[in-house]
C-alpha cells in the first residue's frame, strides 16, 4: 500500500485535531512507513484509520503508540557507555547530587544500564534518575524492568564490555555477577531487573514536541538516543534548545551513535564524540 505525502499529511492533521499529539515535524520517511504498517496491521485503508481515530480515543492512543519506534538495548553501543564510565560520570563525583534525564527512554533498558553503571562507580545514592517517553506502554514496560532473555542475549556481551572489562587496561577484570543487578531465567525466557533498581527512576509521560518543564529540575546529564532521528531538523532544533535550557553549565547531552547536532545551536556546546557539553 503506497501512501502519498498528502495522505500522510491528512493523517497528521487528523491526529493533531483530535488530540494533543503533533507529528507534523516528524521525519517523512519513517512516519510514512509507520503509517503504512498501521494500515496493514489493522487491515484497513487510510479513511478507515481516520474515521476510527476521530471516534475512538482508545484507538487513537494506540495508533499514536504504534507510530513511535521503541528499539532499545541494555548498554547499546558499549563505547558510549565506556565514555560515560571513564570520562563523563567521574566529573560529577564531587557533586552533592547528580540529576540525569533519559528523554525518550522507551522500555527503559538504558535507564537500567545507567543505574548499574552509577552503582559500580559508587554514585548511585547521589543520583536522581528521571525517565520520560511519549508511549505509556513503553513506560509501563520500563517500570517492570522485565525483558526477554533469548531476544536480548547480546545484552550480556554489552554488560561484560562496560562493567567487567576496562578497554584501557586489558588485565583489569571486574567479575561482577549478573545477579547483582538482574535475574536471568532461561525457562521463562526472562531478564528481571532487581527491585532496588526498579524503585529509583521517576518515570513520566512526556512529549518532546511540546517541550515544557517536565520535572522542574536542571540536569547534569541528558541522554536522548535514537529519538531525534525521527524528527525533522526544525523539531530537532527545538528539542536541542529544550535540552540546553535544562542542562547545568558543563552538563552533558549524549545522543545516539549516528545522531548529530546541526545549525546555530552547536555553538552553545563543546562536542566530543557523541557527547555535547553545555558551555
Amino acid at each position, binding site marked *: 500500500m503506497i501512501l502519498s505525502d498528502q495522505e500522510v499529511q491528512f493523517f497528521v492533521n487528523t491526529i493533531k485535531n483530535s488530540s494533543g499529539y503533533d507529528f507534523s515535524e516528524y*521525519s*517523512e*520517511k*519513517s512516519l510514512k*512507513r*509507520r503509517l503504512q504498517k498501521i494500515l496493514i496491521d489493522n487491515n484497513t485503508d487510510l479513511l478507515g484509520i481516520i474515521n476510527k481515530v476521530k471516534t475512538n480515543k482508545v484507538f487513537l492512543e494506540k495508533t499514536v503508540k504504534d507510530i513511535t*519506534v521503541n*528499539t532499545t538495548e541494555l548498554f547499546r*553501543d558499549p*563505547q558510549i557507555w565506556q565514555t560515560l564510565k571513564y570520562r563523563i560520570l567521574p566529573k560529577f563525583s564531587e557533586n552533592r547530587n547528580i540529576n540525569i534525564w533519559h528523554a525518550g527512554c522507551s522500555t527503559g533498558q538504558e535507564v537500567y544500564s545507567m543505574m548499574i553503571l552509577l552503582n559500580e562507580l559508587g554514585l548511585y545514592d547521589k543520583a536522581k534518575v528521571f525517565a520520560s517517553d511519549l508511549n505509556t506502554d513503553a513506560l509501563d514496560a520500563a517500570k517492570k524492568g522485565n525483558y526477554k532473555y533469548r531476544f536480548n542475549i*547480546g545484552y550480556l*556481551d554489552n554488560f561484560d564490555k562496560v562493567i567487567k572489562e576496562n578497554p584501557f587496561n586489558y588485565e583489569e577484570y571486574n567479575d561482577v555477577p549478573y545477579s547483582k543487578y538482574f535475574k536471568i531465567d532461561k525457562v521463562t525466557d526472562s531478564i528481571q531487573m532487581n527491585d532496588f533498581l526498579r524503585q529509583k527512576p521517576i518515570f513520566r509521560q512526556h512529549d518532546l514536541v511540546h517541550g515544557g518543564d517536565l520535572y522542574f529540575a536542571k540536569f547534569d546529564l541528558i541522554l536522548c538516543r*535514537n529519538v*531525534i*532521528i*525521527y524528527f525533522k*531538523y526544525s523539531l*530537532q532544533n527545538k528539542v536541542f534548545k529544550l535540552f540546553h535550557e535544562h542542562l547545568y553549565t558543563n552538563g552533558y547531552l549524549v545522543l545516539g*551513535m*549516528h*545522531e*548529530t547536532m*546541526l545549525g546555530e545551536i552547536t555553538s552553545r556546546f563543546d562536542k566530543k564524540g557523541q557527547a555535547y557539553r553545555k558551555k
Partner: protein
Amino acid sequence: MYKAVVIGGSAGSFQVITKILSSLPKNFPLPVLLCLHRLKHVRSGFVEALSIKSTIPIVEPYDKETIKPGKGYLAPSNYHMYVELNKRIALSTEEPVNHSRPSIDLTFETAAQAYRDKLIGIILSGANRDGAYGLKKLKHAGGLAIVQDPNECQVKTMTEASLKLTTVDHIFTTEQIISFLLKLK
C-alpha cells in the same frame, strides 16, 4: 545523466564491493549508497575495512547528512538507511525487515523515490531475498537495474530472487560492473 548509485549485498559480497570501490576514480561523479548485511555483533571495523580499499571516502553517515557526489555512504549496522526527497540520509531503528536491519529493500525503495530515473541499482551476492523488492521498485521508478551474474556469486540466492522479480537491464560480472561504472560521467 545518473545522479546516484545504490548497491546491496550480503554473504559473499564483501570482496566484490571492495573490488568495485578500489577501482573507482578518486573523482567518481556520483554518490554511492551501500547497504550491506553484516553480523549483528560486528558493529565497528567494517567501514574501516572498506575505507582501506576504497579510492573514494566511505562514511557511516549521520542522520540528516547531505548526500554528496564522490562519497560512499555505508548503512550503519543496526539502522535502516533511507534517502529523503531532499537528498539527505535518514536513519531509523524500526524493526528489521525480512530479518534485516539495515534492509536493502528500504534503502533501494527510498533512493528510488528520491532519484527516480537518475538512479543505478546493483544487487550483489547474498544468501537471502532482501533487495529483490527494492530493485523492483527502483526499476518501476525508471532507474537502471543491474544484478551480479549469479554464476559468479559466492551465494546466488539474492541475485536469483532479484532476477525472478524484475526484468533487469544488465546481468554483469564484477569486471563488467566496474567498467560500466567507469564510463559514467
